[in-house]
């Protein structure tokens, strides 16, 4: 071309002057880069059919990848070896097993196994629920959010109370005197001997509140819980005599501060998030689904 000869290097570099040659070169360069990016995206996009096994996989079965990390885990699980210490036969066995599994899973989808096999259906429901929960796990809530949750549910975060209580049984006509003796500070065993009583042994040494509640029953536990150290209940009439609840030590639950409760708060916060996500997802599934209900079951 005629103009080519007249172009000098300074004209090419001077962006104040129009240079058709420079424009053509830049256009060509742009086209090559664009094609490169498009080609890369085309051949590496998920689901793209390819003849090359991606580096993170060990095989593609009908374009479905078998991941290298799963392969290594399977190798370790089956033979207890890592890649460097495995034999060709071991690697081949694991790979064949994984390809076989993938083929059968794919065939299962073709046969719509989930439509007929209740175990597969249950597994699928569980898997989707787990998937939803997993999304909630990857988000680390800030301390501010956890503190807000802690403050909103503070009653949940307390140590378990402990109590040491004896359930002493006396003849009905002697229980009041026995109670007075205990209140006056007489040792329990001496009072039992003096007033023909016995220990029901419903409780054992120091117990957590929940255990004492199980052993004493709701009513008696509520009475014992309200007594201070050294406290004695009023006689409780039962078929076997009058019971006195004698509290040696009563340590009510102590509220935990945020630092102490943080781990539990985080667990509860996540459980709460998972529950909300599951409900939200179910609502979304229902909303987008076309559900027809038989006339006789419509409310």
């Amino acid at each position: 071309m005629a103009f080519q000869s007249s172009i000098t290097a300074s004209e090419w570099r001077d962006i104040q002057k129009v240079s058709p040659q420079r424009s053509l070169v830049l256009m060509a360069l742009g086209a090559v880069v664009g094609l490169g990016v498009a080609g890369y995206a085309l051949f590496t996009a998920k689901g793209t059919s390819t003849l090359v096994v991606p580096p993170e996989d060990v095989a593609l079965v009908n374009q479905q990848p078998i991941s290298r990390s799963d392969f290594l885990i399977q190798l370790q699980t089956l033979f207890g070896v890592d890649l460097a210490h495995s034999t060709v036969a071991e690697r081949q066995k694991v790979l064949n097993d994984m390809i076989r599994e993938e083929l059968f899973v794919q065939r299962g989808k073709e046969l719509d196994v989930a439509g007929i096999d209740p175990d597969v259906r249950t597994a699928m429901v569980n898997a989707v629920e787990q998937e939803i929960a997993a999304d909630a796990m990857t988000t680390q809530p800030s301390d501010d959010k956890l503190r807000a949750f802690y403050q909103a549910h503070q009653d949940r975060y307390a140590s378990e109370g402990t109590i040491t209580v004896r359930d002493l049984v006396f003849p009905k006509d002697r229980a009041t005197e026995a109670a007075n003796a205990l209140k006056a500070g007489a040792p329990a065993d001496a009072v039992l001997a003096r007033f023909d009583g016995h220990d029901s042994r419903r409780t054992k040494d120091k117990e957590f509140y929940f255990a004492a509640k199980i052993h004493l029953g709701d009513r008696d536990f509520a009475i014992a819980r309200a007594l201070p150290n050294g406290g004695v209940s009023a006689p409780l009439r039962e078929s076997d005599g009058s019971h006195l609840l004698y509290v040696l030590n009563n340590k009510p639950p102590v509220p935990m501060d945020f630092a102490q409760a943080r781990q539990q708060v985080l667990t509860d916060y996540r459980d709460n998030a998972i529950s909300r996500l599951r409900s939200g997802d179910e609502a979304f599934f229902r909303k987008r689904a076309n559900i027809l209900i038989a006339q006789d079951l419509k409310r």
Partner: protein
Amino acid sequence: MALFVRDKAVEARLLRADPDAIAADAGLNRFAIRRGAPIFRARCASCHGDHGEGDPNRGAPDLTDQDWLYGAGEVSDIERVVDYGIRAHNPKSWNLAVMPALATPNPGGEKGLQPLSPGDIDDVIDFLMQVENRPHDAAGAARGGVIYSTRGACYDCHGADAGGDAAIGAPNLTDRIWLYGDGSRAAIFQSIAHGRQGVCPAWIKTLSPAQIREVALYVHSLSKGRATAKGR
């Protein structure tokens, strides 16, 4: 463009390599660690700390020591945790055992484990103190040892020798390294009474395979040294 292509080629080499052998390839290891560090800071540091030092208040393990809760600290072990997490609701998560809350009415769920009394827990703590050669009450330790290996069912996860089990993430109770708290009686009581079940998210859907390997190699590099390689 050339840098992008070069990085992609190194990434592919990184992914095809045996993860446990990469540390021996200085160039590849350097490449991975350089790229893994910012991923660690963005994804892991909120629990494990900026330098992987962990946080016993949160039960986040120290990643700079030689004590590995799951596996033997090989790159493949770390990568598995990064991939699938711990109790992360991923079907491939580590989720074989939890520390039951033994001060609750039903600590063992379907396993039928019975609750322990405050005195039982104190005895078990004395037993653990004895195992660690710390001051303890001998009679309590004797009773605690029986509880440990019978109705407390502690042996089931932590082993008859209290040495732990890295196959299920049960901590070693003899090494004075405490995942939760400072190893005081109060902190141990808290663990036994209220249970523990720490989690680590599964990153397989968030990070690319190359990023996961890079962060695994970065974590591997944080460890100041390691025990001998896992049994083969």
